[in-house]
């Protein structure tokens, strides 16, 4: 009898009459059943089962306890069930499948690493992160400089000075359609004058958007600094 066996769909029966142990694989029910000398027991295949032998005979079957993890203990040694309460990262044992970080622990991505959340399905979970609620692009630039200068930005390829107070921001990665949401603010050089950012009619495309900065209640455009823009939508 070998050590460290892994059961799949193959018909399998293991028996040790002296120890009164019998295991068999019920392929139709996808269930591993074992007789422990008193009764037949079953276990679900979605749970891990530790089968241990002494090299000749089957000496034990251990399903572990709820919340435990099967931990490798090194070459030539049997793995063992261990409680992982002391770990910084814990996996939910239920079907919810959540992964938890201990208090004051951070999830840090390496360079160029990223986390891509899934699309929302149904009512969003409170505070949940979905691909729909991730800002896809933003920029803060000086629209009053000789040539427009981006101070800070994400997913922006270029900024074009079209005319006074009139700018086009080009995205590095395009949106999948032109119907994405934007929020914009701008500030005039002379304090105390209200301003607004407008999207030029028909000038919101998948790869760019044209905006104009206005003084409130006026059609005239003005060079603003800073001009801020945030865009959310599907990419």
């Amino acid at each position: 009898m070998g050590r460290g066996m892994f059961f799949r769909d193959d018909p399998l029966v293991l028996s040790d009459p002296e120890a009164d142990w019998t295991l068999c694989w019920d392929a139709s029910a996808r269930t591993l059943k074992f007789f422990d000398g008193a009764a037949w027991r079953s276990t679900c295949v979605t749970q891990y089962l530790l089968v241990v032998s002494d090299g000749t005979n089957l000496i034990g079957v251990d399903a572990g306890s709820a919340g435990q993890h099967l931990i490798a203990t090194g070459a030539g040694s049997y793995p063992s069930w261990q409680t992982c309460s002391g770990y910084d990262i814990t996996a939910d044992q239920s079907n919810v499948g959540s992964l938890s970080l201990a208090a004051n622990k951070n999830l840090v991505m390496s360079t160029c690493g990223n986390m891509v959340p899934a699309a929302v399905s149904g009512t969003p979970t409170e505070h949940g992160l979905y691909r729909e609620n991730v800002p896809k692009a933003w920029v803060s630039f000086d629209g009053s400089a000789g040539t427009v200068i981006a101070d800070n930005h994400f997913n922006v390829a270029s900024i074009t000075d079209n005319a006074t107070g009139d700018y086009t921001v080009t995205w590095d990665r395009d949106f999948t359609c032109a119907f994405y949401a934007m929020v914009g603010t701008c500030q005039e050089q002379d304090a105390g004058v209200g301003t607004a950012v407008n999207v030029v009619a028909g000038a919101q495309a998948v790869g760019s958007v044209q905006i104009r900065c206005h003084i409130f209640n006026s059609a005239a455009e003005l060079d603003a600094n800073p001009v801020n823009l945030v865009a959310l939508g599907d990419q």
Partner: protein
Amino acid sequence: MPLVWTMPDGSVRVTRLLDAILTREQGTGETRAETELRLAPWIQRKTPALAGAVASVVDEAKIARDRSKRYKWRLRNGAVVVDETIPDATTTTLEQRIATLEADVATLKTP
């Protein structure tokens, strides 16, 4: 160096590509200006309003600084200059707009 687009009506638009994009896209042995010119069609495809515009790279120092006459900017001999032959805009100044608003307020306050 900015990309300068000459529009069919003669006006110009000035595009500054982000440094991160230029650094990422710059080919081996390629100057920044060459990279910008190579990326110009990419920017143009993303920007419908640039259809029909002609791109050129202009040294930053050769771009006009007077934004009060932004509407008079034109590309002349490799430089963006203020073309004084273009008529003045008819838009009102900020001071004129404030005066108009103050007059409106005074009118509203009149019994």
